C-alpha cells in the first residue's frame, strides 16, 4: 500500500465512524430529549396529549394529597397557571408545599403523570428552571432563592 492509500483508509474510517456518530446523535436528539415548560406554556401552547415534558414551578400549598399506595397528587404553579400532577412513588426529601419542584412525565388530558420528581439539593437554592418559570410569569423577586444568605439567622 502506498502512503496515499494508507491515508485514504485512515480518513475513510474516521469519516465513517464520525458519520455513524452523527447519525446516532441526530436520531437520539429527535427521539429522546425532553422539553422544559412552565405551566403557562402548557396552557398556551396546547401540548399534544401523551407528549413527554418537564415542568417546573412551585408546589401549590394545600394541594398535596397522598394515599396509602404511595400515590400522590399535587398542583404545580408558576403563580399564573396551575397544572395537576399525579405521581406514583416516593417524593424526594426536600419536596414541600410552597417549594420549587421540577417534574418529568407524560401529559394525559389535563394531568401530568410524572415518573420523576426533582426537588432542590439544598434549601438555599431553587432549581434554575423554576426560577425562570417564575420570572416569566412575573412572580419572582430577586434575591428570593438566596434567602438570608450572608446574614446570621
Amino acid at each position, binding site marked *: 500500500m502506498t502512503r496515499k492509500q494508507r491515508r485514504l483508509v485512515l480518513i475513510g474510517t474516521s469519516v465513517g465512524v464520525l458519520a455513524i456518530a452523527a447519525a446516532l446523535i441526530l436520531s437520539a436528539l429527535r427521539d429522546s430529549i425532553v422539553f422544559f415548560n412552565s405551566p403557562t406554556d402548557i396552557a398556551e401552547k396546547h401540548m399534544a396529549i401523551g407528549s413527554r415534558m418537564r415542568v417546573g414551578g412551585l408546589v401549590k400549598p394545600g394541594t398535596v394529597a397522598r394515599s396509602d399506595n404511595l400515590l400522590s397528587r399535587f398542583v404545580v404553579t408558576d403563580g399564573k397557571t396551575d397544572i395537576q400532577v399525579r405521581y406514583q412513588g416516593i417524593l424526594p*426529601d426536600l419536596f414541600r408545599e410552597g417549594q420549587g419542584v421540577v417534574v418529568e412525565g407524560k401529559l394525559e388530558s389535563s394531568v401530568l403523570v410524572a415518573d420523576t420528581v426533582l426537588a432542590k439539593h439544598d*434549601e438555599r437554592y431553587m432549581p434554575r428552571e423554576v426560577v425562570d418559570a417564575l420570572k416569566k410569569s412575573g412572580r419572582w423577586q430577586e434575591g428570593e432563592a438566596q434567602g438570608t444568605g450572608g446574614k446570621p439567622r
Partner: protein
Amino acid sequence: MIPELGHYALVLALALGLVQSIVPVVGARSRDASLMRIANSTAVMQFVFVAVSFSALTSCYVSSDFSVATVYENSHSMMPLIYKFTSVWGNHEGSMLLWVLILAIFGALVAAFGRNLPVTLKAHVLAVQSWIASAFYLFILLTSNPFLRLAQAPFEGRDLNPILQDPGLAIHPPLLYLGYVGFSIAFSFAVAALIEGRIDAAWARWVRPWTLLAWMFLTLGIAMGSYWAYYTLGWGGFWFWDPVENASLMPWLAGTALLHSAVVMEKRNALKVWTILLAILTFSLSLIGTFLVRSGVLTSVHAFASDPTRGVFILAILVIFIGGSLTLFAWRAPMLKQGGLFAPISREGALVLNNLFLTTACLTVFVGTLYPLALEALTGQKISVGAPFFNLTFGPLFVALMFAIPFGPLLAWKRGDLLGVAQRLMSAAAIGIATTAVIFAVESGNMVLAPFGVGLTVYVMFGAMLELAERVGLFRLPLAIVWTRARGLPRSAWGTAIAHIGIALSMLGIICAATWGTEHIVAMKPAQTVSLSGYDLTFDGVTQRPGPNYTSVVAEFAVRKGGKLVGSMEPSKRSFSSRGMTTNEAALFVRGFDQLYLSLGDVNGDGSIAIRLYYKPMVLLIWIGAVVMMLGGALSLSDRRLRVGAPKPAVKSALQPAG
C-alpha cells in the same frame, strides 16, 4: 492573623507564578541556562506558598473561625473533625484553592523529577504550567477569595451542606482534581513542544507516565463520585448522565485515548500531531469541566454558588487557554516532522481505531452535555438530555470499542495479520458466545441485549488473558518456564491486560445490575415482611437516634434468607437543624458482589414508612472494575521503562528498537 497569612501566601504564589511565566521563556530565547533554571526553584516555592495558604484555610476550618466568610457559610462547630477538614473543599472558594494546590504539586514534581529533561523543554513546560497557575491564582484572588473576613464574627456557622457530610466526599474531589489537573502536565508538554517546534519519542516517554498518573486518579475519582452518588442520593442509580458527571467523563475518555496514542508515538514515533492535539484537548476538557461545574451554569450539588463574575472569569481563562493552544497548534503543528509508517492493519492501526472510537464517544457526550446550554442561549428553549440520549449514542460506540479491545495487544506493530489474530481470539470469542447462548437459554429467549452484553465482556476478559497466556506460553511450556517468562514480561503488558479486564468487569456490573436487578417501592407497617429476589425483609419499626449535629430516624430491618437470619439493615434519614434539611442514608447489605439496597422514604406518624428496596446483582463490579483499571495503570506506571526520572541508559536502550 492566620487567614491574612494564607491570603498573603497566595499573593506571593501569584508573584512567583508571574516570574515563572516569563523568565524561563526569556531564558530559553537567549539560551541562558541560569534564567531557565529559575523555574525549578519558583515551581517548588509556588508549591510551598500554596501549601501554606491551604493549611491556613484548613486551620480556620478546624478551629471554626467564623470570622472567615467561607468558614461561616460552610462549617459548624458541632461538626465531626473529619468534616471540618473536608468542608475546606466542600465549597467553591476552598475547592478552587485545592485545584491550585494540586496544580502546584504537579509543577513542583516536574521541577524536581525532570532532571533528565532537555533544559529548554523543561523551561517551557514549567512556564506553561505557570501560565495556568497564575490565571487560577488571579481567579481566586479577584473573584473567590476564601479568606474574606466578616465584619462581625457570628457565633455559629451555617453548616456544610448535609449531602456533602459523608466520608465519600472526603476523597472524591481531591482524587478527581488530581486527575483533572494532572492532565495539565500533558498540556504543558504539548504546548512546550509546539513552541519549540520539535517533538520526538522521548517527549512521549515523558508525557506518558504523567498522563497515566492523572488517568489513574481520574478513574478512581469518577468511580468514587459514582459510588457516593449511589449511596447518598438514595435513588439506587450510579450514573445519571448529569452534566457534572459528564464533565468528568469527557476528560477521562480523551485521556484514555491520549494514553494509547502516546504508546504509538513512543514506540513507533508516529501519530505525533494527533497526540499533541489530544493532549491539548484532554486538558481543555478538564477546563471545560471546571467551567461547567464552577460557573453555576448548571444546577447541581456541585454548583455551590452562582456568581456571574466568576463564570465570566473562568470562561475567559477557558477561551484564552483553549483558543490560544489550538491557534498555536494550527500554526506550528504542520512544522512537526512526519513519523513512522504503518499499515492500517497493525497495532498502530488498532490504536488509531481505539482513539477514533474514544474521541467520537467523547464527542457524543460533549454534544449531549452542551447542546441544551447552546440551545437555551440561542433560542431560549429549555430541554433536558438524559440517559436515553446517551444510551443511544455513547452505547453503540462503546460496544464497538469493546469488540476491538482484544485485537490491539495481539496485533504486531507496523504490519499485522488480522486473520491470524482473529483465529487466535477464537477461543475467547467461543467462550463469549457460549456465555451468551447459556444466558439466552436460561432466560428462555426473553432478552437479547443483556446476554449479548455479558458475552461481550466475557470475550474481552478472556481476550486480555489470552494475550498474556500466549506470551508466557501457558499450557505449552512447563510451569517453571511459564513462571520465569511471566516474571520477565514487562509490567506494562500486565498493566494493559489488567486494565482491559477492569473495563470489562465494570461493564459486566452495569449490565447485570440493570438487567437482573429488582426494585420495589412500597409502604410498610411494622412487622410486615417483603420478599425481594430470595431475601425476606422484615420491617421491625422506627427509632430516633441523635447524631453529633443531626438527629436520625432509623428504620430497622431484619434480613432473612430461607428463614435464616442473615443480617440487619438500617436505612435512615438525618435531619440537620442548622440548615433545616434532611439527607437520606441508604442501607447496603453486601453478599459477594451483590447488594441489597434500602432507601427510606416518608415516615408517617403511625410508624408506617414508605421505602425503596432494590436487589442489585453484581453491582459492586462496577466500582471494582474501576479499581482494577486503576491497578492496571499503576502496574504499567511501575514499569522500569516508564518510571519517572528513570536513569538515562535505560531510556536510551529502550529507545533503540523504536528508532
